[in-house]
């Protein structure tokens, strides 16, 4: 089915008023529990939610499970959602909460003061010298695998901001709100995470 839901941007593309209006209409239908509206929402967001969970957790089975869980939670809570034109943000807030819960459950990680899990999927030293680079990558598949490995080396709080921006298209303000963190902290996490990633991938530059 061709989705009428106009997904917002990946970082740096534009939000259009047309998209917001179209999405509002779809959200209204979903709030009336129209099954077709949910089909459209599912079509529009499955890939991005899967990407978010897969990159966040590193496991395909978990990603598939949580994608479905997001949609079920949407069904159960959509009537309480107050449409402020930030449906995607709301959706990815649910996704972020589920991802954090899963990480906590899997790792039993202690909590930081701001409520974020203090966890790395792979505990490795954060130094460039022991990080493999992508220099030898010959295919896009290899490069993606390496990128996943590097993402997993980021602290969860940095990885979450980077991925929420990329897959969820959330503003930093929204991420700050949804993760209950100061805006400056969120910006710093994005900056640190991206700088590390780029430095690991392109250490020669």
């Amino acid at each position, binding site marked *: 089915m061709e989705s009428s839901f106009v997904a917002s941007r990946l970082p*740096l593309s534009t939000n259009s008023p047309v998209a917001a209006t179209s999405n509002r209409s779809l959200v209204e239908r979903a709030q009336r529990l129209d*099954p077709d509206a949910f089909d459209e929402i599912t079509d529009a967001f499955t890939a991005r939610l899967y990407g978010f969970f897969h*990159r966040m957790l590193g496991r395909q089975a978990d990603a598939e499970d949580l994608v479905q869980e997001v949609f079920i939670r949407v069904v159960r809570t959509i009537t309480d959602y107050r449409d402020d034109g930030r449906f995607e943000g709301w959706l990815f807030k649910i996704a972020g909460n589920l991802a954090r819960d899963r990480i906590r459950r899997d790792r039993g990680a202690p909590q930081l003061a701001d409520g974020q899990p203090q966890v790395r999927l792979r505990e490795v030293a954060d130094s460039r010298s022991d990080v493999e680079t992508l220099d030898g990558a010959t295919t896009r598949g290899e490069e993606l695998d390496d990128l996943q490995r590097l993402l997993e080396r980021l602290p969860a709080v940095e990885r979450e901001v980077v991925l929420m921006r990329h897959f969820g298209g959330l503003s930093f*303000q929204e991420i700050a709100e949804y993760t209950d963190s100061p805006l400056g902290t969120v910006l710093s996490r994005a900056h*640190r995470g991206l700088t590390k*990633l780029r430095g690991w*991938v392109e250490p020669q530059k």
Partner: protein
Amino acid sequence: MRNADLKTEIERLERWFREVCPAPPDVERSAIRRRVRVALDEQWLATRLIHDAPPDLADRAKSRVREALRETTGSSSRIQAVRGRGSRLAWWVGGGLSAAAAVGLAVVVLRSPTESVGAEAVSFVSAFELFDEDGFDGELARLRDVFLAADEGLEHWGDSLDADWESSHDGA
């Protein structure tokens, strides 16, 4: 746009921001550069981070959504039936109370001072957040265009700012 042109354009926009957004020079320069760098690195990442889902995942999700819808609408119907029995009495009681509350609220609102957000409330962080939120006009549109133009030669051009960036980087 060539790397040198992009750098010049960023510097011009930095000057514009310094004029319209009062803040200590070091802070503003650092904030702008950080935000510019984050935007560039996000574009860089976007060229590498694809998101293919398993082909049948959307269908499986739809199936579970339909189940959840059936459960939700079933629960909703039962709740509606129970609510309906008591609703008539509640309407009369609630309606009276609501009318009184509305009058009270109107008085409070009319007596409340209005607040406006002035230009002085715009920080660099919030200015760049406009970039994310509500579309663009004027110089913010120019800034967006610069970022988007950077997409082509992104892997290389951003490094031309590295030296300056590192020297002004506040270590965040």
